[in-house]
């Protein structure tokens, strides 16, 4: 139990560092939109998501409707439903209903990614450790960015922008090297994503990620169905 918690927390350190730098940018942006550092930190603590928060702040600033807020959050964040579904298949039996309600809060791209990369089943303690340290980084970064955003040299803050993407590559490259099927899925998803970025530009970034991922995974599932032992 305790061991799992600390293992989760230590696996969350790269997420902590990545979040610290990304949410720093969110803090700056929120303050520029007329939101106080305290409110910005509350938004980060209650939402724990990047793109959704940025879009939410835009709506707040523009005085948009609640319907608009609901729709935008749905579209941008619906990928979490896919991730939650995928994670639900590798939970330890200790994951009872109250634990599921609690841990749902922390299903982010990065936490999902690190959890899915684990060979063992995911326990509540493991996830709580990771969520705690990640949320700490997310909220601290927001507060720092909101309070003192302009203090960091440009060269440092712009270089930090790549941290989370570097982590994503570290998650997908080793399995893609071992399994041709994963390599094919990764290449297909990247290809469709590039298509959306430069050709089908009318599609919003949130939808583009969903469509790319669903298309590539469906292709992978059709061409390379996984064997029982490969999934765990």
């Amino acid at each position, binding site marked *: 139990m305790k061991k799992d918690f600390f293992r989760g927390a230590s696996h969350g350190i790269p997420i902590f560092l990545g979040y610290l730098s990304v949410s720093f940018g969110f803090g700056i942006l929120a303050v520029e939109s007329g939101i106080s550092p305290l409110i910005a930190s509350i938004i980060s603590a209650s939402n724990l998501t990047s793109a959704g928060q940025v879009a939410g702040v835009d709506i707040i600033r523009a005085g948009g409707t609640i319907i608009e807020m609901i729709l935008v959050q749905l579209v941008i964040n619906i990928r979490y439903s896919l991730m*939650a579904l995928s994670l639900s298949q590798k939970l330890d039996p200790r994951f009872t209903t109250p634990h599921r309600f609690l841990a749902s809060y922390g299903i982010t791209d990065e936490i999902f990614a690190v959890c899915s990369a684990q060979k063992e089943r995911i326990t509540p303690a493991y996830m709580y450790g990771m969520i705690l340290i990640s949320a700490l980084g997310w909220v601290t970064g927001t507060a720092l960015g909101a309070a003192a955003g302009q203090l960091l040299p440009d060269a440092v803050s712009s270089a930090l922008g790549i941290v989370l993407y570097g982590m994503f590559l570290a998650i997908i490259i080793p399995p893609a090297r071992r399994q041709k099927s994963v390599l094919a899925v990764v290449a297909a998803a990247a290809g469709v994503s590039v298509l959306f970025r430069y050709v089908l530009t009318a599609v919003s970034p949130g939808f583009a990620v969903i469509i790319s991922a669903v298309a590539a995974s469906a292709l992978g*599932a059709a061409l390379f169905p996984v064997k029982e032992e490969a999934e765990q």
Partner: protein
Amino acid sequence: MNIAVYIIVMAGVTYLIRAVPFVFFRRKIKSRFVRSFLYYIPYAVLSAMTIPAIFYSTGSKLTAAVGTLAALLLSYFGLPLIAVALAAAAAAFIAGFLI
């Protein structure tokens, strides 16, 4: 409108998107296609989120490309996540001075 209303709606919708499938989906999925699909989803999502966005992450495509190359190399050789992530930033940072 009160900002608290916005924040509650925002946070509520985001939470429900995560919680509904996570809490209420208990069955073991039998369909081999669906199981395979869910097996590939993490890699596909991360790939789609990273490419091409990574090249726009540092404000300069050139420094981002250097950072990406560093990340690809180190992850190919199986270095830990934190090492790859920080090396990407360090490479982009250094490239920023050389270019």
